[in-house]
């Protein structure tokens, strides 16, 4: 029997970095769950990623051409298959678009308890789990309790420190399972990927984000210039994404990304709770907004009450002057 099965998501051949946060959760939970840690690597070309996970636990691979694209039903079928074969007590999946969907489909199909979006999690004395998670967009923190397992756990991104990569010393060859899904009712085409200019907001140490106050796509060029000066990335609120000014990959918040850069600069962003949940763990938050009563100032370390059209060009020039 397997104790914990971690879903290692592979995106375009690369192991997604969320994996290391899941390892931290798995190691903490393995103190009370017997059976050890196993890893599920699902995709089409996953050898390199599978090797990276070696040293964490036993690696189980389902490699199949039908798993080349992030096709939710197929990936979930692979995870459901592995979960059937390995009978884990706990499956831990990343809260990515694909990972969260695989977790939901597994939990619903097997009627396992889904413990999702948790920022804390612990085993209870009676053999259950207890965790804390945001609800209502982050306005409220709920303590939730699940009875006996199996459980599907989806930790909140950035809530757990990433574990160190294994040395690979104890690595053994991955165990291969052939993909045997039931008839699949949906079909997909190859994704259209839109390359993100510069570094992605997940990885940047500085993120400068624009919102509804920018009133159009053009001002994002100014934010891009500032991001380039400080080696950062450009982010956005949902208003900017839904208005079509920038691509979805830039969205910070409840249904966007959860980030925790060293510095987050919010320009023309009101600070709605659903936005703040994606950036409130940033070390330093700066807000530029012409409305002194905007909620963003309530979470900011530094604030400028003013029009970004006046403030931000001077800000850029001051930084450019220092680098020149």
């Amino acid at each position, binding site marked *: 029997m397997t104790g914990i099965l971690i879903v290692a998501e592979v995106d375009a051949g690369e192991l997604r970095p969320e994996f290391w946060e899941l390892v931290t959760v798995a190691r903490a939970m393995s103190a009370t769950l017997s059976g050890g840690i196993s890893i599920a690597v699902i995709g089409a070309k996953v050898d390199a990623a599978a090797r990276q996970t070696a040293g964490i636990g036993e690696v189980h691979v389902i490699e199949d051409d039908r798993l080349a694209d992030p096709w939710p039903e197929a990936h979930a079928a692979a995870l459901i298959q592995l979960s059937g074969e390995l009978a884990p007590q706990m499956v831990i999946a990343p809260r990515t678009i694909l990972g969260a969907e695989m977790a*939901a489909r597994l939990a*619903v199909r097997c009627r396992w308890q889904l413990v999702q979006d948790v920022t804390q999690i612990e085993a209870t004395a009676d053999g259950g789990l207890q965790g804390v998670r945001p609800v209502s967009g982050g306005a409220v923190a709920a303590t939730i*309790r699940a009875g006996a397992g199996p459980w599907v756990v989806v930790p909140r991104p950035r809530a757990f420190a990433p574990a160190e990569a294994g040395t690979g010393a104890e690595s053994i060859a991955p165990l291969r399972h052939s993909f045997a899904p039931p008839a699949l009712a949906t079909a997909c085409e190859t994704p259209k990927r839109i390359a993100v200019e510069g570094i992605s907001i997940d990885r940047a140490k*500085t993120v400068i984000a624009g919102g509804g106050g920018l009133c159009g796509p053009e001002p994002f060029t100014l934010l891009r210039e500032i991001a380039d000066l400080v*080696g950062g990335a450009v982010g956005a609120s949902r208003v900017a994404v839904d208005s079509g000014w920038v691509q*979805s990959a830039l969205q910070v918040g409840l*249904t966007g990304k959860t980030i925790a850069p060293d510095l987050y600069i919010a320009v023309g962003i009101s600070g709605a709770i659903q936005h703040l949940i994606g950036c409130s763990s940033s070390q330093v938050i700066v807000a530029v907004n012409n409305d002194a009563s905007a909620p963003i100032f309530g*979470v900011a370390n530094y604030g400028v009450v003013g029009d970004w059209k006046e*403030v931000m060009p001077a800000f850029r020039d001051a930084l450019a002057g220092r680098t020149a």
Partner: protein
Amino acid sequence: MRVVVCLKQVIDPLTPASTLALDRNEKKIRAGVTAPPVINGFDEQGLEAALRLRETNKDIEIICLAAGERFSNDVMKRSLAVGADQLILVQDPSLDTWDPYPIAAALAAAIRQIGGADLVICGRQGSDWDNALTPYILADLVELPLLTLAKSVTVADGKRVEIERVLADGSMRMNAQLPALVTVTSELGALRMPTVSARLAATRKQPRQFALAELGTAVVPGHAPEVVDLAIPVTGRSCTFIDAADGPSAGVRLAETLLQAGAIRLGGER
């Protein structure tokens, strides 16, 4: 072709956290001030998707379906005002719950009661509990293929539904044979405004009421964790406001302040 759009009545998600009232005994979140509830935003976008479908496929019947403890007729009838043909409300005290299983079971039973649907559309998640699970359970209960996170929905020759699914770095086209269930995301766009005449006409239409008992849903045993406590998290920081004569000097001073504090390192350490 019949399209069922699932709607949930929720607390307005823009209600400031400071005015929310937590019922820590019942484990419920209530709008402390008497702010009117709203239709969950993503569900409204699901209705917008259905209305767009009807622009190109005239013979589409749109039925809005909601399950909850009680409803504000004014709020829910907005769906009729923008063009839904029918509104069905399944009402029961047990449906004021964080657990998505009973809600999905009620929706499934109502869909069966009306003789099924060719396409069911749900919002990606409810803004009250953010579980994003009801569509998965509903698809499982009514045994429909599930396509999620659509920013556009089209139906080809009345047989297949096609969506454009939002990804973290782009999008992907997906399709399934009808009948199917689709969830939509905010990139799809906001629900249209009702015309004045449609709004007036809607005031005369009445929702159909279903009691849970008459649908004969079997009680679904709990598969979801339970909420044991609720709290408002403390998130405040103390903000240092940059004082300056005008905007440009504030910009310069902000740059200096951040450089001095070590928050900005020029030259870009990535």
